[in-house]
Each structure stands twice: as structure tokens, then as C-alpha cells.
């Protein structure tokens, strides 16, 4: 009787293992297929010219997306520049003032922001920035992306700083270090790796955003680094080319998709490795 139920349990546990393995496999499948398909289609479009030349008019052979690569770089860089100080500041506030009305309402606001559809960000920034300035611009695009990125930076900062033992802060305070110096020189450095990881994930998230850029950065066939002018971006190129009627552009859309995906993957991998590498032991 005992041995019987025992071997039955072993069998059941075996079956469960197989089922779990099967589901794990299934969940990996879409990613692998997408990557495979993307690589196959995209590689055909990517060559040196694709990465270093401006687009050519329809009908002409060749041409590239260097404007979109540079444009995306500018947009991401400016968005990060805006979102990081604000986000780290807000996250710091939330981790320091755990209770309190302002923290509560900040959390509510950040939650709502995080849940807002990205197209809405685009429309709002259009109304706030593009209309008053009467021009699509890299600046407005970065602002829209920065707003998208903000919740991620805020929450990753808050979570990281909350995990830092309180005794560390007290160690500094007990040495007669003023509060603001304790925060700047002890708390933030101790949380640096977590904050950086959060920022990387945030960058990866906004790198592929299209909707907030539609009425802000708008896109441009030129290589222009003036932040007050419209600017191209990889996801915009994918969107515009893929919805165009020209097969030659479809191919370029695949190429741009692959470049974008590769970039996002690299960011995620760096974040993953970074979390382990830069981990600070308390």
C-alpha cells in the first residue's frame, strides 16, 4: 500500500515535470520564431549602405536608414537626459517618505501614467509642445518618450533604494554627515547598479515606441541634429515603410526592425548581466 502510493506519486511528479517543461517550451517558442523570422528577412536588407546612407526616393536602388538610427539615438539620449534626473528624484522621494499624502498621490499619478496608452502621450505632447512651437521636433518626441520612461525609472529607483538597509544610512548620519550628503554619497551610490539597470530597461522600452512619435518627432528623410526640427526614428521608419505600397520599402522595414530588435536585445542583456555583475553586497 505504502510503496504503491509512493510510486504513484513519483509518476505524477514525473508527469507534472513534463507538463511544466512543455509550457516553458511553448512560451519560448514565439520569441524564437520572431527572432528567426526577423533575422532571415532583415539580414537580406542590411548591408553597409543600409546603415550609413540616407533614404533614396522610391524606384532608386539602395539607400539606407542612417537618419533613423541617428534620430533614434538623439531621441533616446534626450529622453533619458530628461527622465533620469526627474525619475531618480521622484523615486528617492518615495523611498524616503514612505508614508504621507504626497507620496500616496505621487504613486497614484505614476500608476496612472504607467497605464496610459502611449498614443495619448503623443497627443498630449502634440498639444503642449508641438502646437505652441508650431513645428514637429526631436524635442517634442523626446518629451513624449521621457514621459513614457518616467514610471519605470521612478519605480526601479524606489525599489532599489528601499532594499538598501537603513543601517547604512544611519552609519553615515552617525558620523555627522548631513542628510543631503548621506543621500548623495552613500544611498545613491549603493543603489547605482539597480538604478542603472532600471534605466536600461526603460531605454529598451521606449526605443521601440512608435505611437508617441507620430505627432511629435514625425520623421524626416534628412540627417538633421537640430532638436527643434522633425527627426526620423527607427520605429517610425518601420511603420511608414511597412504601410507603404512599395515592396522595396517593405524590405527596408524588415531591416530597420532587425536593427531595432537587436538594439533592444542588447539593452536587456546588458541589464541582465549588469544586475549580476554590479551587484553590491551589503
Amino acid at each position, binding site marked *: 500500500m505504502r510503496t504503491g502510493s509512493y510510486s504513484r506519486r513519483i509518476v505524477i511528479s514525473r508527469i507534472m515535470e513534463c507538463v511544466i517543461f512543455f509550457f516553458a517550451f511553448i512560451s519560448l517558442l514565439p520569441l524564437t520564431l520572431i527572432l528567426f523570422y526577423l533575422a532571415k528577412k532583415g539580414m537580406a536588407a542590411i548591408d553597409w549602405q543600409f546603415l550609413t546612407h540616407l533614404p533614396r526616393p522610391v524606384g532608386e536602388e539602395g539607400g539606407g536608414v542612417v537618419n533613423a538610427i541617428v534620430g533614434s539615438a538623439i531621441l533616446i539620449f534626450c529622453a533619458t537626459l530628461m527622465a533620469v534626473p526627474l525619475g531618480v528624484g521622484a523615486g528617492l522621494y518615495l523611498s524616503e517618505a514612505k508614508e504621507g499624502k504626497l507620496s500616496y498621490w505621487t504613486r497614484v499619478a505614476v500608476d496612472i501614467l504607467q497605464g496610459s496608452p502611449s498614443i495619448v502621450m503623443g497627443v498630449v505632447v502634440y498639444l503642449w509642445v508641438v502646437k505652441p512651437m508650431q513645428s514637429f521636433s526631436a524635442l517634442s518626441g523626446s518629451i513624449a518618450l521621457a514621459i513614457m520612461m518616467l514610471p519605470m525609472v521612478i519605480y526601479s529607483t524606489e525599489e532599489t533604494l528601499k532594499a538598501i538597509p537603513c543601517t547604512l544610512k544611519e552609519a553615515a548620519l552617525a558620523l*555627522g554627515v548631513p542628510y543631503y*550628503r548621506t543621500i548623495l554619497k552613500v544611498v545613491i551610490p549603493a543603489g547605482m547598479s539597480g538604478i542603472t539597470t532600471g534605466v536600461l530597461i526603460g531605454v529598451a522600452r521606449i526605443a521601440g515606441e512608435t505611437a508617441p512619435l507620430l505627432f511629435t518627432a514625425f520623421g524626416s528623410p534628412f540627417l538633421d541634429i537640430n532638436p527643434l526640427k522633425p527627426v526620423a526614428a527607427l520605429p517610425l521608419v518601420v511603420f511608414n515603410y511597412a504601410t507603404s505600397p512599395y515592396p522595396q520599402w517593405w524590405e527596408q522595414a524588415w531591416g530597420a526592425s532587425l536593427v531595432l530588435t537587436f538594439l533592444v536585445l542588447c539593452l536587456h542583456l546588458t541589464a541582465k548581466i549588469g544586475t549580476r555583475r554590479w551587484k553590491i553586497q551589503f
Partner: protein
Amino acid sequence: MENPILITENLKAYYGNHLVLKDINLEIPRLNITAIMGPSGCGKTTLLRCFNRLHELSPGGRIEGQIWLGDTDILSLDPIMVRRRIGMVFQRPNPFPTMSIYDNVIAGYKLNGMKLSRVEADEIVERALRGAALWDEVKDILHRRGTFLSGGQQQRLCIARALAMNPEVILLDEPTSALDPKATAHIEELLISLKSRVTIIIVTHNIGQAGRIADYTAFLYLGELVEFGPTERLFTAPKDRRTEEYLSGKFG
């Protein structure tokens, strides 16, 4: 008592409305080791954190009464100045994880933005680490992270960090409760060797430890100072029944 270094007068400490220390009147003798004992939750940590005004930073933390350091009431001083004169060592070793051993020792200077020349810094580091009986073990690995050290070494590093500021008083909150007996013995010896330079106040649960190192012992019970006196007298002839019961292990 002759020339005490710290005197509390009707010291009360609160967390919100919760009165944790009730009219403590205590005179801490200079250049001696004073142990603070008492059952868990009686307010030992709170008392210690009043001395360097860390208590005010706890949510709802509030102090009433006076604490005299020499002839100034530390409650009227800038807390930052108080903390530079009264150092603290915590229950769990807490070296700064982003700093080397070397930088940990001079953290009080660096974090406060005080400029030290290379020679001065070297000197302070060596003197503090020798003072904390850690120099021989770490002199060749000063550039390594402080968190690489063993628990006992980390705790001595924290003592060195406090010593480096040349404080008049060092507060220790159960500094050996996270350490093994050997590391504990090491720290006890160290404290005895330090008392010619600096006044030491140590919270401990360990009656044996108080007996071994403390010249004076204060016994707290439910936020009251029940008894204070030379350790030997307090241990052999306690005046209060509660002290006696605590020492004989009836509660704790």
C-alpha cells in the same frame, strides 16, 4: 561622581505618543566602560540613540529633558556636531559597501567633504586601524572592499571608522551579538584597550560580557533606570529586586 562626561537630566524619549524612556537621570563616568543592560524592549537602544541624537530621526522620535556633554546641553547643539563628538557602532556591522577598507576608515572625513592630504589620510587610517586591532590583518588589502572581511573584522572596521573621527565617546549597540565567541573576545579586549582614550558606552544582553569589561553598569527596566553603579557592586549586591531577578535569569 567625579567629572562625568555625559549627564542626563529627566531624559524622556517618545515614539509618537509612546513614552519609551521615563525620566532617566544618569551620569556616565569619563574614560570608563559603562554597560547598559535590561530585558528586550526596555529602551536600551533608544537611550543610546538619544546620546547622538539619532533617535530624532526615527519616525515620531522625540526627546525631552537635558543631556549634558561637558557643560553644553547636546539637545541645543547641531546634531551634526554632536555626532562628530560621539561616535556609534551598530549591532550589525555596516561598512559602506561601495568603499574600500581604506575609504571606510576615513569615511567620516570624505563624506563630510573634509580635505585630507595623502599623508594625513594614511596616518589616520593606520592609527584608527591599529586602535581597532585590525591593522595587521588588513594592511596589505586596504584597497579591497570592506564587505569582503569577516563579520568580526567588519565590526572592528566600523570601530576604526568611529575612532578615526577622534570622538570623546563611542556608543556600541550590542556590537558582538552577530559574532562568534572568538571574534567577541577580540572585540572585548579591544574595548578595554581603548578606554584610556575614549569613553565607551555599550549596550549588551550578555551578563558575562558586562562583567568582563564594564566598570559601571546601568540596569533599565520598562524605560526606567532601575539601578546604576560599579559593575561589581551591582552584580554582587544589587539593591533592587528587579536587578537581582534579571541577573539570576528570571527574565530577559
